[in-house]
């Protein structure tokens, strides 16, 4: 993929310090409850915790580790420490433990460490449950978990539902603080771009924090020059597509959790599962993660042949050479061998699963939806998918993709697909459909009135605050996707002349087999190219605006600074591995280095699952 005469992308800054900061703070907080104690950890925090500390570090401070779950504890320690997310449910669980102890006349010390921050609502619950004075509370400001050289995750998957479905702004403060921390360590950022309401609010809150803080970063040489914030609802389409770059496929198939994956027996071809860390340290993975799946096989078999050749060299070695070989090379080769066999196993398993699922037909349907052809045919494909009770999540995903690309389903289709869905997967999904409608992922085209007429009426309502009632209709209209128009304006569907060479990609569309350039990435590309939103007015109108671009420190726009080519892209509501791969590709082409800050790694399944109601 080498092109002549392009600038090399600069190296990303070192984010290891973020881990150290988080670890040190945690240990400090644990020390605040001196003596032996048991630590109760929220399930969601375990994997992130694993990435920054290990049991031996915790063992200095902690006797036993428990998972926070709805079961009474059998621990006999007289000090309990809870490491939790600020959730009401968890507060009730803790209050129950304390109240049970009180009833039993048992006295213990309790401490709650909230990560990344505590919420007033949580304290209210503690107060209501009558345990407010019995616990001490602390905050572990663990906002940022570096998953890789260029990926930082906030590990807040609930951000998506909380903000986009419920309209709750509770995590915006965390985003602002994360930006503040990154700015103080790797900034000052000289330019900020953004699109989306949440992006705007996060930016404003961050600026507020900056103005207040006394740290003076002026004159420091920044490591990261630009920041780009984007709301997930700017582009749902990309997140809804089946992923076909290797890392995305692995995520869709096996679920990458906090940068590592559990490969089951079908991959390891043994009877046990293996947990594998997937990042740039993995020499095999780092070379295939961004590749289209079809190029991965070739690469792996080439790699295997090389490995074989290296092993074969030991034939005909004398004793001394053999000794050298064993002491110096063998370990590396063995390691590589292990990794190779794992990834080959993973590929096989993916292939097996995908052929079973009519993957080919599904991709074909997706591509038709993206291009806007054969809508009827795609609709019946989705219908049949539902009737056959194939994965409920996949069915939802396809319906959403149909809805977003078509600006809503026609009422007849909506009704019939919904009915069949409820019959196939359970009537309680009535609630799922309601949520999807509210968030704007699966809507019904309103019959009669043209949208523009409704729009103008609604916007009148909005400006006239006294008139009061802003209806739900407005909410869903505000999220009208306009995908076709945007796609046309930005040229998201590459014109095909002959076969798209997936091994030698010419644009970001390769991450979707050459059929579609991810909208989110295209926007970033366009804005960076123009260094502003100028000329994108029409697209912005279709995207419902809320864009901004601010130069933080004037005069420091010196292009000589490498930092100007390092861009912190902030995805509010999650980003997919396909988007990461696409931007990595763009970075290589244009000499940028993208750093990804996301509230969580997401994919279509996670997004759909977030819309499903579960019992309390």
């Amino acid at each position: 993929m080498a092109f002549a005469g392009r600038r090399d992308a600069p190296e990303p800054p070192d984010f290891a310090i973020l881990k150290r900061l988080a670890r040190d703070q945690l240990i400090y907080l644990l020390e605040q409850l001196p003596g032996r104690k048991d630590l109760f950890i929220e399930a969601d925090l375990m994997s992130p915790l694993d990435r920054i500390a290990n049991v031996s570090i915790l063992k200095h401070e902690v006797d036993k580790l428990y998972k926070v779950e709805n079961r009474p504890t059998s621990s006999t320690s007289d000090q309990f420490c809870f490491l939790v997310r600020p959730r009401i449910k968890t507060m009730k669980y803790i209050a129950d433990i304390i109240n049970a102890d009180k009833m039993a006349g048992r006295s213990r010390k309790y401490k709650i460490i909230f990560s990344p921050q505590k919420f007033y609502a949580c304290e209210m619950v503690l107060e209501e449950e009558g345990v407010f004075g019995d616990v001490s509370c602390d905050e572990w400001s663990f906002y940022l978990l570096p998953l890789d050289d260029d990926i930082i995750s906030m590990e807040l998957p609930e951000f998506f539902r909380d903000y986009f479905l419920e309209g709750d702004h509770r995590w915006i403060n965390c985003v602002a603080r994360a930006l503040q921390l990154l700015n103080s360590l790797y900034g000052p950022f000289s330019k900020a771009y953004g699109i989306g309401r949440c992006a705007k609010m996060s930016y404003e809150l961050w600026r507020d924090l900056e103005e207040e803080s006394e740290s003076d970063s002026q004159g420091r040489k920044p490591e990261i020059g630009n920041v780009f914030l984007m709301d997930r609802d700017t582009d749902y389409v990309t997140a809804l597509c089946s992923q076909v770059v290797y890392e995305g496929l692995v995520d869709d198939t096996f679920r990458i959790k906090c940068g590592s994956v559990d490969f089951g027996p079908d991959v390891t071809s043994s009877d046990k599962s293996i947990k594998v860390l997937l990042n740039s340290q993995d020499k095999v993975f780092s070379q295939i993660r961004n590749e289209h799946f079809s190029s991965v096989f070739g690469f792996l078999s080439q790699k295997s042949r090389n490995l074989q050749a290296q092993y074969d060299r030991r034939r005909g070695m004398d004793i001394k050479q053999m000794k050298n070989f064993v002491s110096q090379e063998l370990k590396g080769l063995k390691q590589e061998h292990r990794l190779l066999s794992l990834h080959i196993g993973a590929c096989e398993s993916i292939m097996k699963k995908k052929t079973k699922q009519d993957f080919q037909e599904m991709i074909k349907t997706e591509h038709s939806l993206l291009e806007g052809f054969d809508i009827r045919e795609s609709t019946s494909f989705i219908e049949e998918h539902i009737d056959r009770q194939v994965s409920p999540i996949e069915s939802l995903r396809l319906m959403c993709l149909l809805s977003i690309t078509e600006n809503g389903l026609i009422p007849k289709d909506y009704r019939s697909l919904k009915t069949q869905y409820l019959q196939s997967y359970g009537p309680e999904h009535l609630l799922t459909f309601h949520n999807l409608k509210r968030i704007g992922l699966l809507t019904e085209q309103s019959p009669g009135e043209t949208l523009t007429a409704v729009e103008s009426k609604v916007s009148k309502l909005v400006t006239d605050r006294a008139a009061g009632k802003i209806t739900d209709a407005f909410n869903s209209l505000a999220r009208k996707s306009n995908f076709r128009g945007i796609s046309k304006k930005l040229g998201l569907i590459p014109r095909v002349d002959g076969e798209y060479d997936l091994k030698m990609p010419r644009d970001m569309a390769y991450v979707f087999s050459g059929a579609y350039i991810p909208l989110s990435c295209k926007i970033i590309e366009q804005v960076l190219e123009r260094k502003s939103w100028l000329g994108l007015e029409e697209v912005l109108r279709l995207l419902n605006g809320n864009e901004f671009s601010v130069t933080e420190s004037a005069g420091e726009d010196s292009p000589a600074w490498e930092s100007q080519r390092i861009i912190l892209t902030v995805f509010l509501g999650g980003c997919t591995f396909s988007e990461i791969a696409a931007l990595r590709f763009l970075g290589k082409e244009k000499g940028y280095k993208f750093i990804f800050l996301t509230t969580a790694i997401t994919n279509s399944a996670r997004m759909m699952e977030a819309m499903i109601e579960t019992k309390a």
Partner: protein
Amino acid sequence: MSRARADEEEYWHSSKFRAFTFDDEDDELSQLKESKRAVNSLRDIVDDDDDDLEKVSWSGDPVGSISWSIKETASSSTSSLESRDSSLQKGYSSYSAFPKQASSYSLSSLFKGRNKLPSFQSLSDALSDTGVKNYAPELRRPKAEYKDYSSDWSPKDTVRRMQRGKVCSLERFRSLQDKLVLLDEAVAGHDGNIITAVLIFLKRTLRKEILFQELEVRQVALCHLIHFLKETGEQKLLLDLLRFLDRTEEVALSQYREHLNIQDVEKRREFLKGCIGLPFSAEDTSHVQDHYTLLERQIIIEANDRHLETAGQSEIFRKYPRKASILNMPLVTTLFYSCFYHYTEAEGTFSSPTNLKKTFKIPDKQYVLTALAARAKLRAWNDVDALFTTKNWLGYTKKKAPIGFHRVVEILQRNNAPVQVLQEYVRLVEDVETQLNLATKYKCHDVVIDTYRDLKDRIQLAAYRCKVERGSAEEEKIDSILNNTQIRWKN
């Protein structure tokens, strides 16, 4: 001690209303911090002219309360080294100075632009300016309410302090006006945590109808309250709110949602029965009705079948013991179950597939797919055959399917149907290319051979010869066709 002051102290000592603070821990440090905050807050007051102007223009009304404007003065004049109680006294004394300050401005001067008052140069001027702009002449208020603390902050500062996780009392925001300014500041601050905190306070100190009414025009705050009520499980208040907002459909769905938490099937069924009358959309009403009917059926079927199974009389249950109960399963799964265990039952019984099909208006396509999968699983090929056989008016039988025959083939193949069965359906696939692909894939040699013969494709047929077993009937058939001189091969 004046009467008013005595009243006030009594109020604070006897009141069951505890000061609303979120964090009371750091008593000793707080004093020192307090002074630092006071200094810091000055900067906001001095700098944020624009924001203050905005406050005035927000609704055209004067915003803020008297105690608020006093506080602005107090925070600069009162020593913050005093404890809260003593600051109450001292602050009180500054109350007497207040009317003088206010009286120097006419009402109309409140609405003058800032630069028309050139005397505002010093810090204290700037402060009183801020105070005046936000001053609301609420003369009817009892004197006892004119209190302040050194820790009295403007709504904006209160929000800001809460955002930084600092001690902050909301208790003194007592007038509706004050509460709403506080709420609007919280919303403007973008931090949902604070918005919810203010809402908790408002919810506690306002009658719900008043709160609801104000939230109706504050969509962001409204979302926060709804989410909060959902999370804390305050279902009753949530429903009241939704009803107030006329969101009847959400009222219905929110109630329906509760069924998820009911484990006991009988109770769940009863609950669902109660849901049918809720104000769903017409479409959803029928879905909920179906949900109820389905569970009702499942309970009956489950009881019968458990009995049958334990009695050990029925062959099908002995041969294929049930892996799980049918309760709470989707309709299609129930249909599959009934096609599996109760296929031949008369339409009159609740467990018969035809009854299910009728009751729930299951489309043909869905029915055939499900029945096919169930009968194929049992390897009941005759049933499969019957499923697709139709007779026309002349008595001829014909195979018809509401789904593509390639799907039929796929389902049969997945259930390990023998080649004889499989190839019959492969032949029915309309598209020749698909047919050939399927036939090759599933080794339906006869179909492949016949198709090549019909296509007059000698080369392909010859090539296929090496794919069949040597000496088999298929090989013989290929040979005889290839040797047939009557066929006009296209190649």
